Structures are given as C-alpha cells and as structure tokens.
C-alpha cells in the first residue's frame, strides 16, 4: 500500500514548555470561579452583618470553627473526633456499600441485559425500586440487621445499585449491532464473546452507572448517619444542630461537598485509565 501512514502522535510526549503553558491557562481558568466565590462571600457577609441575624457571617463562621479547620485529626474519644475521622468513617461505610453495589449491580446488569426474559421480568421492578428515596430503606434495614452500621451500609448499597444495574443493562443492550455481527460471523465462543466483545463494549456504560451511584451513596450516607448516630459526618452535622453550633454545620457542609466532588472525579479518573480513547465521551 502506498498511502502514507498518518498515525496520530502519541499523547504522552513530555514537553516542559507546553506544560508551562498548560499551567498558565489552567490558572486563567480559575479566575472566574474565584471571583464568583468572592462575590458570594461578600453577599453572605452583607446579609448576616446585623447582630440579630439567624445565621453566622462567613468571618464568624471561620473564627468559630478555627479549631476544627486547623486540627482535623484530634480524637477525644466517643463521637468527639476531628472532621478527618468523621469523614473517614463515612467514607468507609460508602466504600463497603458502594463496592458491594458495584459487584452485584454489574453482574445483575449483564445478566438482565443479555437475557430478554430476564429483562422483561426484572426491568419493571428495577424501575419502581430505583425511585424509592434512600431513607425509606432505613427502617426496613434496621429491622433486618438490628444494628446501626450494617443498616447504614445497606442503605448505601440499595441506593447505589439501581443506576449501576440500569446503566449496565443498557450498555449490554446498546452493544453496536456491528460488534455482535462480527462475533456471529466469526462464531466466537461464549467466554471469548464475553471478554473480548460484551464486557469491553459495556464498560463505558458501567462507569456512567458507577458515577451516578457514588454520588447517590454520598447523598444517602449523610442522611442515614443523621438518623443512626455514632461517628460520621452526618451525625456530626446533626449533633452540631442539636447544640446550636451553626458554624460547625456550615463548615461540615463545605467538607461534604468537596468530598463528593472528589469521589466523582475519582470515578472519572478510573474510567479514563480503563477506557480506550474512542470510547471516552
């Protein structure tokens, strides 16, 4: 063949000059959100300046919670722990519940996606159950497990599993007909079809499900912990409300948001590692 090979240059070529430029443009990108945050803080300050305001101003919030911010690692026993430990405990619960949900969800999703009968039988059930709010599961799980911690984990599991199942199912059903045709023409064996065609083709959908799932589990854990008590960022907020430490609540909310964002980015990062170039959206 005489046509030239026009292979794209590989992306991982190190170039200091280019890196510097990239860093600069990244910095420039930070300016608008920084301004937005500043404006928000100023407005907040203006609204809460009067002495009889119900909510603390940003400056008061920071000064009141300085101890929590600078020292997240203290541990005075019981539930009186630094924010790091509170969040870590919550994360452990999420990790356990979410991992279980991912394993069971992907397996179920592939099963339902490959079998028309299973799909017809189970899809309506999934569609109903996925709309149930996470906290509605809590009494049932408390009744079943009789303990706070497994119940919380179960709530995470049951919250995260639906988007994973549904997306995996969809992924299997959306495998391009062409790939299936290739497999049919080549008469690929079942295991080979699964590992070479079905699973790789479904991976992008699985990651979408995981991303939605992790977001939902983080939402659910905060709510669940408020009810079951013990160590955890949810109960920390509830406890602060009971002791009228409004500033603590605000700072905990900021932490919850940041951790949620980090979890989401983590899944995106993992999917970028796994997926080949043209599968990435």
């Amino acid at each position, binding site marked *: *063949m*005489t*046509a030239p*090979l*026009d*292979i*794209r240059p590989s992306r991982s070529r190190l170039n200091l000059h280019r890196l510097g430029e990239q860093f600069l443009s990244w910095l420039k990108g930070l300016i608008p959100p920084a301004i937005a945050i500043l404006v928000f803080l100023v407005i907040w300050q203006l609204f809460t300046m009067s002495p009889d305001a119900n909510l603390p101003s940003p400056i008061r919030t920071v000064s009141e919670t300085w101890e929590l911010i600078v020292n997240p690692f203290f541990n005075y026993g019981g539930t009186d722990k630094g924010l790091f430990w509170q969040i870590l405990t919550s994360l452990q619960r999420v990790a356990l519940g979410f991992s279980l949900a991912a394993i069971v969800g992907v397996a179920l999703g592939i099963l339902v996606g490959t079998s028309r009968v299973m799909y017809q039988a189970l899809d309506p059930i999934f569609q109903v159950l996925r709309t149930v709010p996470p906290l509605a599961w809590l009494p049932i799980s408390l009744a079943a497990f009789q303990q706070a911690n497994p119940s919380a984990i179960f709530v995470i599991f049951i919250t995260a599993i639906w988007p994973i199942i549904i997306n995996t199912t969809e992924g299997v059903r959306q495998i*391009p007909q*062409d*790939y299936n*045709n*290739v497999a*049919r*023409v*080549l*008469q*690929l*064996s079942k295991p*080979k079809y699964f590992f*070479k*065609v079905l699973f*790789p*083709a479904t991976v992008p959908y699985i990651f979408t499900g995981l991303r939605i799932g992790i977001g939902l589990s983080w939402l659910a854990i905060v709510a669940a912990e408020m009810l079951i008590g013990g160590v955890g960022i949810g109960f920390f907020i509830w406890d602060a409300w009971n002791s009228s430490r409004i500033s603590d609540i605000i700072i905990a909310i900021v932490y919850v948001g940041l951790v949620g964002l980090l979890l989401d980015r983590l899944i995106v990062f993992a999917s970028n590692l796994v997926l*080949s*170039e*043209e*599968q990435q959206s």
Partner: protein
Amino acid sequence: MAVFVEVDHVDRVFPLAGGGEYIALKNIDLQIHKGEFVSLVGHSGCGKSTLLNIMAGLDQPSAGGIVLEGRQVTEPGPDRMVVFQNYSLLPWLTVRQNIALAVDEVMQKHPKAVRDRIVEHHIDLVGLKRAADKRPGQLSGGMKQRVAIARALAIRPKLLLLDEPFGALDALTRGGLQERLMQICQEHEVTCVMVTHDVDEALLLSDRIVLMTNGPEAHIGQIVDVPFSRPRERMEVVKHPNYYSLRNEIVYFLNQQKRAKLHKAKPVVAVAANGLEKVNLELGFIPLVDCAPLIVAKEKGLFDAYGLSQVTLNREPSWNAIADGVTSGRLDAAIMVAGMPLGITLGYGNQRPQPMVSALTLSRNGNAITFNRRLYDAGVRSLADFKAAIDRRPDQVHTLAAVHPTSMHNLLLRYWLASGGIDPDRDVSVTVIPPAQMVSNLKAGTIDGYCVGEPWNARAVQEGLGVVMAIDNEIWPGHIEKVLGVTEAWANQYPKTHIALVKALLEACEYCDDRRNREEIAEILARPEYIGADEVLIRQGFLDPYDRGDGREPTQVLNYVQFFTGKANYPDVTEAVWMMTQMARWGITPFPRNWLEVAERVKRADIFGRAARELGLLDIGRDRHSIQLFDGIPFDPDHPLEYLNSLSIKRDLRVEEIVLDPLNV
C-alpha cells in the same frame, strides 16, 4: 462452470409496527460462480444490504434460501466473512489483536505459531506493518478498512461479502484500496459480492453488476455483464469501448428507478377520450433519421387527427432504454429495432420472456457499415481485403460495433462478415454501443468500425474518420429496419388506441416517402429536440447523393431509406422467421420450436390490415415469400432449421419451445 452460491427465490418481509408488512425483497434469484465478483447496485433502501445480510446468514429470508456449495445457509459463519460498511473493528483491540481474534477463533486446529504467521502475513498484505500495534481510534478511515479487509481475508472465507466497503473514504484512498482489493481477489480467487453506490467502482471490480429496483418489493431489474478482461487496470477499463455505454446503461437504470419513484407518487391514469381507451401516450424514439414517421406524425398533427390528443415523444439514450421502457410500462409504445419485439418475446440476454406485438414496420434500409479510415488507408477496400488483413495479423483483434443485439445492424453486420468467411465472434469482436456514441468511439480508436443508421455514417465520413464499406441496400435491399413495438398486454388492454396509433404512423410513413415532403422533414429532423444534427448530414442519402468517403463522387442511392413504398409497412412473418434464425445463429436467443406461432403472435397482420383498410390503403399486404440476400443463399420460411443447419459459421444452436401463455398454476 458450477454454481457456487445460489440465491434461490429469496423474499424478505418485515412486519410493520402498525400491523401490516413491508415486502423488502421479492423473488431474488441469482447464481454466482466460483471466483466471480458480483456487485449489487441500487438506490438507498432497495434492500441490497438486506440481501447481503441474508447471504451472510445474519438475517433470515422469509421465503426461499441461500445455498453455498450445495448446502443451505441458515446461520452466520466464517466461510461467509463480511466486510462491514463501518469497518466494525473492536476499538479496544489493536490491529493485530483484531485480526488475531478472528484467526484464532476460526483456525483453532492450526498451532499458535501458524496462526500468528497468518496474522502477520495479512497485516503485511494490506501494508499496515507500522500500525500493527495501534488501536482503531488512532487510524484513518482507509487504514481501518484495510484492517477489516485483512481480517476478512485472513480467515480464508469461501465467499467475501462487502457492504459498501469504500463508501466513507476519500477518492484517493478509495482508488488505492479498490486496486488492492481487485489484486488480492484475483490472486486468491475469492468469490465476492459487493454492495455499492459507485457505478465506476462496480465497473472496475465486477464481472457482473446486479441492478436492483426500488423497494418495496425490490427485485433484480437487470444484470449487466462486464466484459473487460482480467487482470484489469483502471485506465484500460476506462478506455474500453464499452465502458461508457455500460456506465450509461447503469446510470440510466438508476435514474429510471428514481423517476419511477416519483412516478409511483402520482400514478399515470389512462385518459380515455375521442372513443379511445387511452389518449395520453408516452412514445420512445432514438435520434436517427429513420425515426421520421414518429416525428412527422407529431409535427403534422396526425396523432391528433386520429384522436391521440396527448402524445409525448421521449428521446431515449439507447435501445436498451427503449426495451426497458416499454416492458416496464414507462413507455406505451416505441420505435424499435426490427428484432427487438421478437427478442423480448424470446427472452434475449437471459431476460424473462415477455410477449410483444409489432403491427407496423416503420422503415426499411437506411444503414451502412463504416470502417475506420486507417483500415481503408491500409488497403481494406472490401470484405475480402478485411479478411486478408485479419489473416495477416491474427494477433490484432478488430472491434466492430452495432447498436443492439437484436437490431438489423447486428444481424446484417454479422451476416456480412460471415459471408466473407469472417467469424464475427472469433475473428473479430462485435460489441454493442448506442448509435450516438459510435463516432466518438471511432475517433478514440476503441472500435474499428460499426454498422449504424444515419446520420452517424455521414458524420464519420464528414469528419474524415471513416469510410463507408457497404450500404445495407447492397446486402439486403428493402430489409425491415424499424418497427412499432408494444407489449402484448398493452395491445390487449388498449385495442382501439393501438389501431389509432398504427393509422397515424402509417399515414406519416406515406407522407415521409413523398419526395416533395422530404426537404421539410429534413429541416424538422435537424431540430435540437429531435436529432439535433447538421441538416447536411441528415440529407445524405435521405435527399442528397450519398458520400461514402472513399474519394469517389457521391451517388444517388435509390431508396436509401424507405418508409412506405414497396409494401414497406406490412408486418412480415417471413422476415420475422429470418430474424429469429439469425438471432439463434449467433446465440442471442434460442430458436423457438414453435417459430410460426411466435412469429404470428408478434407480427399482428390483423391489426395492420384493419388500420390500412380504415385508411383506405388497399393492397399493401405481402404474401409469403422467400428471402435472398446479396450472397444468393435462399431462405425458405417453411424450413428455417434446415437453413440454419446449412450455415457454416454459427454458434451452438438452442432449439426450445417458447411458452407464450404460461399456465397459471
């Protein structure tokens, strides 16, 4: 050659959401030989990809089946590998892994080392060594398609199915890949079926091109044989004398399908008026001097005089288009070459026989055989000289052209050559080219001569390209030339209209043969909407002395073209039998065992007689007679088979019973 793949009366019906059904394919019947390259061409949505999928086993026919080497195809398998339109490479595997996936699965009985060698060999074959470890996402479209082709070839399929393989590629890449594919297929004798939109691609690659009609109920409209020899080179193919006529034929078919689509949107209804069943007639003609009766009838208001008040004349690009137009119902009637109604009735060119009727002969004589001036300058002055020239240089193949297999041009040219001891199929090559393309092909040197009507001989003479070797008047004076042709179904449906049409044209023929009218007719014919040629050329032979281009003084030829005199218009059964013997002689049609029945069914003397009586034209009928051409061999219409057997130069004779009224089972 044994049939390799048989598509046996395949139907494909899709159920519709609303409850009805959509018939995508109807009665597709196709035989493919081993090593053959067949293209499926048609408009989008004509079901060609569906057919390909059925052949692959990816889709199941609703009726009929696919037989590959005697075994029915029921499921997809690696013996029928598909190259998909969008490559269908797995994006998470590298080039090598993609090919290896196929090879490892299909060739499990070979050891790993052998399989790896096969993979590497095929990566080399398509020139992708440097990209072997890239993933498809890092490749261009052309490279991806090369991988797909390599993957398909690597598993040694018996049948390679290609679904618009080059559709998404730029022209340059496409050209390179086409040549590559052609080369590989030739080297490995792969049997291929390709779906394509690209007429040039189909012509370059295929042995046969299957033209599909539009859906619903898409079926095979026409099969075009591509006669170019292999191995092929793109430039040689383009220069082949038949290239543009084949191309035109296919493009014409496709345009026709497009028009038919619009046609279907507003179906033409027969407008009954003036006591006739249908007065809105679509008539077809080819721009030639002998189409004069049709044009005169229109221009002089003769159609209107007999009640045919809405006649449209359609200028058609080739005689094939005329045949197709009349049999498909697009045209009500047309001026046809003399053998065409018989040829269609007998099913020439492996087409389904369809009974035709010809109740009127429109013209006699008017053709000439023109040779390239080069041959004349090299001393070829007569048939004997030509024979001597051929014997001197047997390595040189002379190509001569006629306008249609069933035309008198073809039959007379062949007769003339054979009478001089030249076998028209073995010693020279006789090909089919539409009249208007003769001169340009002669000029390009792709043909050495032709037999055609005017003004195309006069044109070659005028341009100094050719010399007239023989006028058909010298071969068979007063031979049948052009006829009126309709389908038998049409004639039965509109009998009064048919008679009115015959009357109008018969009167026009009489008008054309009055010398006093010919000045005026020559002027009308020269108009751009009819022949669109220089009036001087049209007058050659028609009015003026005929210049043969051999340096001699132009001479007046009596009855160079004849429309009425000498009982010209009678549908002559004897001539019909003679034409059937000649078509059988050259293998164009089988010879009907029921030859008299066929001849009398086509040549409807009763309709002619009635029209003539109503016009008050008496005594223009002909009696049975024997025919004698310039060589003096008599033809007795009562013993056509003995006549055929007595001829020395001929093809294998097929004698068959032609069933004109198939039993409705």
